[in-house]
């Protein structure tokens, strides 16, 4: 076990979406309502909250299951204390990613790589060029086998005109880029 970090809860509460952390009174409502906990007991939102409050920074930010949340907002809905659990999990993911960039954590779940590529597509074009981002992601994470697996659906979608080969960019991309720039200034 890593050392306890009493500052961890404040670190989380400073982030947009993490403010309500201290309101939790550990009723377990979030975990009971969570469809992911139902199929994977290792994923447990109430435990993450408790660990965060106690200061178990390394355990939480290094937990590979963090990336399993499907953002369904059941926990958010059923929490009697309005902890906004879904957003809190996103904050933990974000902090985990920052640790990964510093080489302190290794994230196995490739979802964050997809999210980074998605963000970059939005920043550049104002919209996401989905088929391209998805195809590149599958290629990077699962290689040729992954692409082959995707082929039947890809082909059907292509012939139905559901795949666009070119990115559509908006005209005021500068506004979107400004938004990215300003909002990201607040990130450390």
């Amino acid at each position, binding site marked *: 076990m890593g050392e306890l970090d009493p500052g961890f809860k404040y670190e989380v509460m400073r982030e947009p979406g993490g403010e309500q952390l201290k309101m939790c009174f550990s009723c377990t409502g979030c975990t009971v309502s969570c469809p992911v906990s139902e199929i994977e007991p290792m994923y447990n939102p109430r435990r993450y909250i408790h660990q965060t409050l106690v200061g178990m920074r390394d355990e939480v930010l290094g937990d590979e299951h963090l*990336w399993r949340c499907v953002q*369904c907002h059941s926990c958010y809905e059923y929490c009697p204390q309005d902890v906004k659990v879904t957003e809190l999990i996103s904050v933990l993911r974000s902090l985990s990613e920052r640790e990964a960039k510093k080489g302190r954590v290794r994230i196995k779940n490739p979802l964050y790589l997809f999210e980074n590529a998605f*963000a970059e597509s939005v920043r550049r074009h104002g919209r996401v060029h989905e088929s391209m981002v998805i195809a590149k992601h599958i290629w990077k994470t699962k290689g040729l086998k992954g692409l082959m697996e995707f082929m039947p*659906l890809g082909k059907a979608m292509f012939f139905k005109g559901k795949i666009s080969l070119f990115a559509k960019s908006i005209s005021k991309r500068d506004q979107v880029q400004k938004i990215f720039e300003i909002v990201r200034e607040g990130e450390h």
Partner: protein
Amino acid sequence: MKTYSFYPGCFVEGSEVEYAKSCEKVFHELGIGIKELEDWNCCGALELTTNKALVIALSARNASIAERMGYECIVPCNICYNNLRKAEHEIKNKTKVGEIAIKALKEAGINYEAKIPIRHLLDVLINDVGIEEIKAHVKKPLSGLKVAPYYGCLVVRPSKICAFENPVNPTSMDNILETLGAEVINFEHKVKCCGGSTLMGDRDTSFELSAEILEEAVRKGADCIAVVCPMCHTMLDGQQAMIESQMGKKFGIPVLYLTQLMGVAMGLSSSDVALDKNIVPAENILNKISKEGGV
């Protein structure tokens, strides 16, 4: 004729052409004017939520366009809807993240006052158009067609933000489908998650969650599932064959947008509602509609 602005979002515009087309045709039939938001951007979807302020600011830019155009904004995607509602909520209540977003918008030269209502397509259909008006447009009732109504998550949750429906047991789609003449199945999974947002990271979880929904619909004898979100549709329709092969099960159940079913009941042609674009063949639902019911 009431006119609304319309925010299709990347998903509907990029690949879910059957949704875009059926929306357009159905609104036209109902006498509703639709103006696409000018130069809209991606709302951030569920992919950018590790930076909440970014999602709020990107979504608010879209809402600001609706505000400038002066029309209430219809959103046909659960995810976009949720993001735009959250943006409106945070900015209206001047929360910390709302203030960050407003600052970013200002620097980008955008003014937004959170004054224009953001409405899900389903909200407009049930509360503005209304059951009576929908009924008046039904020419070919969907008699004999058994439909499982699947709402998904983000159109009803969090209910403090998406305030038009009951978060546990929503009924608006049930009521519309009944009005169309369909037999509506009592669907327990109606607000349980399809798992779409982790498809690119943890496919097993996504597939397992979607399979639960498909299974219930098949078990209860549904002829098709009705949806109001492109993410739900991509999971249940587009990924259905992959889910089948991974789980060694067979579902073979068509998944249609509510607007496609409305169009069929209103007497529009199958090409008007793009039934040929669904991945699981959808045209054969037409054979399940009993002819005696027709007017």
